[in-house]
């Protein structure tokens, strides 16, 4: 493959990141994604759109999120300095709202009045419902029936925010089925509906626009570390489900060749078992939900169910740009098992007084491994992409504690 020394050229005009990405949708959806792409190009050029985003990010979401020196974790490992990008301090408790705001503003530009979204753990659903409440838009959230049962507090939050929850019982009743059902709704309601996708996957232009909206994470982190330390970090690190928080952190550092990019996938019970969610480390390239990427699939090309202790990482695919960054070698992707994430969750809570979500706990668990390969006088930034309040009940259950 060519040395991709100009990372900004991706995706190309066909929505490709090298061989990955694309627009693998039924013809019924084609006019919709072509319209969305045209509108996004126009919005990017419109100073009013950019200004409105910036204003909402500052006053509604609470950006910029702090870059925090995790002093006690750094002492604990005794190696390079560890910084947290504190996206868990955002309104609604995770990075998801960065993207929801952008997409909902786009929807309003397009005159759409009905917003649909898929959600697994409920974080993207809550963020979408929040932004829809803020702008008075109708919001429908598709959620696997299994997840509706597992995530009752978030289901209630979404209802409080005025969203309608559609439990999806087709397939296995989890995130991928919720996404199938949202796509079906979209082709059925083409005139008034906007599909707000929660991760950097799906047909072009979604991986690009979600990345662009989430890139605020990396842009801020880059400026903050330069101001604080006067130099770039040696590595940046994030957990990966579909990969939106990771691509948001990585992208502004792509051209900085000295900065290593480290993603951590959820390997559930182990990547060698049939219960994991590590598409890059345990999957093969294939086509699902509108894009070509690495997928968990069987020999006949049927999609396998993912498993992770963290519902937010419980997806059998991965954003196409990560597939590309892996194959080009620009980013490296590690794995973390359920029990390792649980331990890291507790360690961070005790040492830093920050209860992380189970998703970033996967990245936390790989910190010692990443630090092994970094100059002890160096710097590592990890995105703490969500707070753990939502996970307290399930962590208690896993630890055998009755509440």
């Amino acid at each position: 493959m060519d040395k991709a020394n100009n990372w900004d050229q991706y995706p190309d005009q066909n929505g490709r990141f090298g061989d990955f990405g694309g627009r693998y949708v039924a013809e019924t959806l084609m006019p919709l994604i072509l319209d969305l792409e045209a509108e996004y190009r126009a919005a990017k050029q419109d100073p009013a759109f950019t200004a409105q985003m910036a204003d909402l990010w500052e006053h509604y979401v609470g950006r910029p999120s702090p870059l925090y020196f995790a002093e006690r974790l750094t002492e604990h490992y005794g190696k390079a300095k560890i910084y947290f990008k504190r996206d868990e301090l955002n309104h609604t408790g995770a990075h998801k709202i960065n993207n929801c705001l952008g997409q909902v503003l786009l929807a309003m530009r397009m005159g759409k009045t009905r917003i649909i979204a898929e959600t697994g753990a409920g974080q993207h659903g809550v963020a979408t419902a929040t932004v829809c409440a803020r702008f008075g838009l109708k919001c429908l959230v598709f959620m696997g029936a299994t997840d509706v049962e597992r995530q009752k507090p978030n289901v209630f939050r979404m209802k409080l925010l005025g969203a309608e929850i559609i439990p999806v019982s087709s397939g296995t009743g989890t995130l991928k089925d919720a996404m199938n059902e949202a796509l079906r709704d979209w082709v059925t309601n083409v005139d008034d509906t906007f599909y707000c996708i929660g991760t950097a996957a799906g047909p072009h232009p979604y991986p690009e626009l979600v990345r662009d909206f989430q890139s605020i994470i990396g842009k801020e982190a880059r400026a903050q570390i330069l101001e604080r330390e006067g130099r770039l970090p040696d590595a940046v690190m994030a957990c990966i489900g579909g990969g939106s928080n990771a691509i948001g952190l990585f992208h502004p550092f792509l051209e900085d060749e000295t900065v290593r990019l480290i993603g951590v996938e959820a390997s559930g019970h182990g990547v060698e078992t049939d219960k994991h969610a590590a598409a890059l480390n345990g999957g093969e390239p294939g086509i699902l939900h509108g894009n070509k990427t690495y997928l968990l699939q069987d020999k006949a090309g049927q999609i396998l169910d993912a498993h992770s202790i963290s519902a937010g990482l419980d997806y059998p695919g991965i954003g196409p740009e990560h597939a590309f960054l892996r194959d080009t070698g620009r980013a490296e992707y590690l794995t973390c098992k359920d029990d390792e994430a649980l331990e890291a969750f507790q360690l961070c809570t005790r040492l830093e007084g920050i209860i992380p979500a189970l998703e970033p706990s996967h990245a936390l668990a790989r910190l010692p491994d990443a630090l092994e390969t970094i100059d002890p006088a160096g710097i590592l930034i990890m995105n703490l992409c969500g707070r753990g309040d939502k996970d307290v009940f399930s962590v208690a259950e896993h630890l055998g504690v009755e509440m």
Partner: protein
Amino acid sequence: MPTSRITARFAKAKSQARAALISYLMVGDPDLETSYQAMCALRDNGADIIELGAPFTDPMADGVSIQRAGQRSLKSGTTLNHVFALAQRFREQDRDTPLILMGYANPVHSLGYEAFAKHAAEAGIDGTIIVDLPPEEDQPLRAAYAAHDLSVIRLATPTTSETRMKTVSDGASGFLYFVAVTGVTGAGSADPQAIKPNVDMARRVSGLPICVGFGVRNGEQAAAMASIADGVVVGSAFVDHAAKAADSGQYGTVPTGMGELAKELSGAIKAVNRG
């Protein structure tokens, strides 16, 4: 010559001043032997073209009926190789009825486009509808088909503009599958007169026979569509017979039920003179 099997069938229907009936079944729902018997029953009762559904875990363009059919088929272990074997078995005793494989991209990609094309052609399949391979993404498939004379059959909808229709037509052959309502399979029916201008435009731009599907369930609806289209596609209504049999365990009722429906539909379509 596969493409000519499709062309010949539309020519035959045209010479009889009628539209063609295209019937769909999900292969392996509930089992392969039933699928074979159903194909024969469909053919014997007036189906002009048979679409063989290949199951996929995540059929994002399908409604509940065909989703469940796919799940039953996967449960019985159906793969693309079974679809090829079924087509071949049918082809050994029927040299004329066109067979169209309908499915999703990932199983095809997993097998490899070249191998898929070779197996499909050898099995006597005449064309394919790969739902999530729009013109922008089906170049590898077209390249693989060139050596085998297989038809790439594409989809169009009432929201397909004339400009877009040119893109959809470029590289398409056999016929064009016109989705009558924007939505998923098994959705509500469309008003034939409302979509007639779109169907006429599709025919003019593509130069292909236009087959209308989605929401056609009975003779009356089929006759109404037959007045504006060159072919009428019926899927979910056939698949419902397999659903009932799967519930009752009486698989023998599937070919009978599908055959009776084909008879009703083809009779209604033939009564509409398109001369």
